[in-house]
């Protein structure tokens, strides 16, 4: 969205191609407290709506479609869509973001939507006065564990290390919240239940002790997997699939740029994604005018 805003203001003919609708991972969270300019914080979907309206203000084209592949053609690229359509363009800014990673343990896939969740703001209210577990120790895990205390009577925070990775302020909040009980050095071996989640099989990595923890739901926040599999192999990525760029947001293929969470970078936040988008659009503008 930021790339579309900057590109349209540079009077570049811009198409914003969305798989479903704007917002991405922002729609998976309830509240945004760290985006500059909103000192009281803001509801995440409200910020999405404001950003989408802003991105469109200076005139862009919009389309819904799922990109299957990108093929080089004379003077640029052809973007192939799932419905069979193709779009010709001189430059592409890939801002496809990332999706929550799976744990890849038995029971996870079959019980998704039946107690296994990757979105606390969507599914938290179904666990009023129940017991849930949050898996992970980063910002998202801790933030969502705190959000879940509004509904659940007990939130176990299960982390494979002996301390959280989340930013200090979130750690302080979580560790002083009486409803949150951290379980350290522990990994989930399986998620158990037939029609709905009943328990987790846990392994303590330090002392090797296994035990079963009764829960009604489990929320998984163990990092991100980038949405970059549709890109041609020439676009260099790290071993996890994050796109490697320079400070101009240029990838290893001239004319293909990347911005936001799909890019290899140290901090994946709304504020850094927006900066990437602006830089990428500037970079395209520079490329088109200087050739």
């Amino acid at each position: 969205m930021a790339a579309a805003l900057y590109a349209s203001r540079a009077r570049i003919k811009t198409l914003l191609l969305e798989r479903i609708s704007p917002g991405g991972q922002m729609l998976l969270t309830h509240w945004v407290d760290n985006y500059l300019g909103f000192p009281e914080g803001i509801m995440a979907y409200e910020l999405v709506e404001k950003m989408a309206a802003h991105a469109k203000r200076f005139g862009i084209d919009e389309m819904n479609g799922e990109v299957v592949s990108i093929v080089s053609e004379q003077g640029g690229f052809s973007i192939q869509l799932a419905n069979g359509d193709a779009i010709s363009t001189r430059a592409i800014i890939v801002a496809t973001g990332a999706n929550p990673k799976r744990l890849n343990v038995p029971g996870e896939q079959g019980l998704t939507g039946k107690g296994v969740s990757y979105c606390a703001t969507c599914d938290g209210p179904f666990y009023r006065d129940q017991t849930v577990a949050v898996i992970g120790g980063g910002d998202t895990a801790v933030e969502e564990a705190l959000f879940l205390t509004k509904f659940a009577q007990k939130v176990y925070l299960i982390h494979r290390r002996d301390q959280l990775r989340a930013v200090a302020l979130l750690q302080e909040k979580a560790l002083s919240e009486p409803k949150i009980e951290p379980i350290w050095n522990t990994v989930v071996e399986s998620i158990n239940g037939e029609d709905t989640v009943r328990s987790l099989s846990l392994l303590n990595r330090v002392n090797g002790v296994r035990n079963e923890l009764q829960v009604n739901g489990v929320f998984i926040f163990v990092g991100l997997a980038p949405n970059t599999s549709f890109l041609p192999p020439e676009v260099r990525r790290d071993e996890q699939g994050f796109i490697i760029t320079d400070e101009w947001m240029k990838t290893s293929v001239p004319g293909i740029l990347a911005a936001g969470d799909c890019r290899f970078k140290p901090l994946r936040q709304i504020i850094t994604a927006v900066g990437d988008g602006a830089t990428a659009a500037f970079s395209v503008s520079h490329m088109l005018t200087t050739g």
Partner: protein
Amino acid sequence: MANDKVIHLTDSDFDAIVFKASVPVLVDFWAAWCGPCRAIAPVIDELASEYDGKAKICKMNVDENPVTPGKFGIRAIPTLIIFKDGKVVEQITGAVGKAAIENVLKRVV
């Protein structure tokens, strides 16, 4: 931009509308606080126009209607359930693209 072809179900009229329909029925279980539900709302509106007469496209607010979601074991939203002849044909959890929903609808209409 809400489409008036979308039928808004309640706990009291769900059975009559869904189980007695002569065409397939899609029900989108949603809530106002759910971001991904907002993301797919325009897709549901489009489907309601495109499948007008061929399928009933419905929405149920899970906050206002606590009984029906429980009957279907719904613990995540958005959840889309597609019914044909009163039976569940497919259940889709989470926000998916229009193509994925249409793949199921095309199979049943």
